[in-house]
């Protein structure tokens, strides 16, 4: 993926910037310019804020057949995380034995390397999730 296309999304990829609808309060991640529920009523009322970064695993999979750029990480855990503010997103869960991942598991976001554009290319960063240890 070309570098400008990646930088453009940096606020949400680095800082989990989302939007909250001023009409119904529902949260969209990544940010949207209007609310999927309220449409016209939400125009100009979508306020940007940072998700706190904590959530629970809604579903997950241990991926064995992986894209070439993730070959070194295989097998890895991909998950859908339900953030505490209400939005769901897709991300890797790391620093955990895949066998210990389960639906409902508490996780928090951390900034990690997602990939790069070849050995001399730019490195992309973004969110992955790690278990919250009690």
């Amino acid at each position, binding site marked *: 993926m070309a570098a400008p296309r990646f930088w453009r999304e940096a606020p949400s990829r680095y800082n989990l910037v989302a939007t909250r609808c001023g009409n119904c309060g529902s949260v969209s991640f*990544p940010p949207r310019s209007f609310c999927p529920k309220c449409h016209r009523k939400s125009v100009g009322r979508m306020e940007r804020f940072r998700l706190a970064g904590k959530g629970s695993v809604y579903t997950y*999979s241990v*991926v*064995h057949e992986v*894209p070439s750029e993730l070959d070194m990480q295989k097998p890895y855990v991909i998950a859908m995380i339900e953030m505490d503010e209400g939005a769901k997103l897709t991300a890797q869960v790391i620093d955990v034995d895949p066998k210990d991942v389960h639906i409902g598991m508490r996780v928090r976001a951390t900034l990690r390397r997602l990939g790069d554009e070849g050995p001399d290319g730019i490195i992309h960063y973004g969110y992955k999730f790690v278990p919250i240890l009690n």
Partner: protein
Amino acid sequence: MRDVAVINVGVTRFGEMWDESFRAIGIEAGMQAIMDAGIAGDDIDALYVGNMSAGRFIDQEHIGALIADYSGMASAHIPATRVEAAGASGGLAFRQGFLAVASGLHDIVVVGGAEKMTDVGDVQSNSIQATAADQEWEVTLGATFASLHAMIAKRYMYDFEAVREELAAVAVKNHRHGAMNPKAQFRREITMDTVLNAPKVADPLGMFDCSPNSDGSAAVVLCSLERAREFTDTPVKVLASSQASDTLALHHRNDICTFAGTRVAARRAYEMAGIGPQQVQVAEVHDNFSISEIIAIEDLGFFDRGTGGKATVDGQTAIGGNVAINTSGGLKARGDPVGATGVAQIVELVHQLRGEADRRQVEAEVGLAQNVGGTGATVVVNILGVA
């Protein structure tokens, strides 16, 4: 709107055809359909071609004109349109052809679907198929197309206490059907153990839960129902055609174990046809992964939520069951040359409704096809009936 009929069909063998080019494969099914229908080139008013990603698979765009040209129709200058909606490209091309004839604008339309996937390797093919998902917010974060469906399967098993064998039963059944289809990519039966012990792709899905990479094409000729008998004694009527969309990314749905796109498209299609799900005796559904078929047969109203897997294990979806699902072998065993798939589904229904399905034949007056793009962001439902 006027009534529309399918007057003929054609389909190539599906599989890895390293010795044949995209354009050779692309025109083969269409030429079969046109020849058998006894129509000449200048009878054809328009061409629609379903194709997902020739640009990525073979570095060729502009597929509508290419197929028209190599079918010998360049000199007729007919309108030729490529239709793209990822995995639903073929079903949607069929719908565009249907709309063109139903509107009265055209009398005879050819709808084709074609894909040449095996010129690239499996890893690259997987990444091309993942372009049907959200590149920015799913794929870049590490999701593969298979893993998105694996996450649906994992959640389905959690919500409904379903077991792994329910998924595997879909693959076993579709291979059994595919073994009876001479055009299928895989024509051998497999056992439950083979599915359960296959190499893992994305847990809980293994190799036999996933449809293969395939080359192939399929085509149908559509005509106004009033003129259909000029060309055939056995026209098949299009009872309904419907389409719905949903969020591109799976994580933006409240419930990922049902596709609202399928539910809405099915409701509209049943209304248009004036029937309910219990009137459907044969259906081709989008089993790109085993879990997809289970969700499809629930969303289409054949089974209650959470019971599709158990119904499959019980044999209710096999040939001879309550509703025969994927008599062709489905995407799993017939093969899934993406843009061709939705049209191949129609071809199978026409064979069934005309009584030409040989060993796969079921008693059927009404057949339904459900074709899905991405993880349900586009769903097309077409219903056909004996005219």
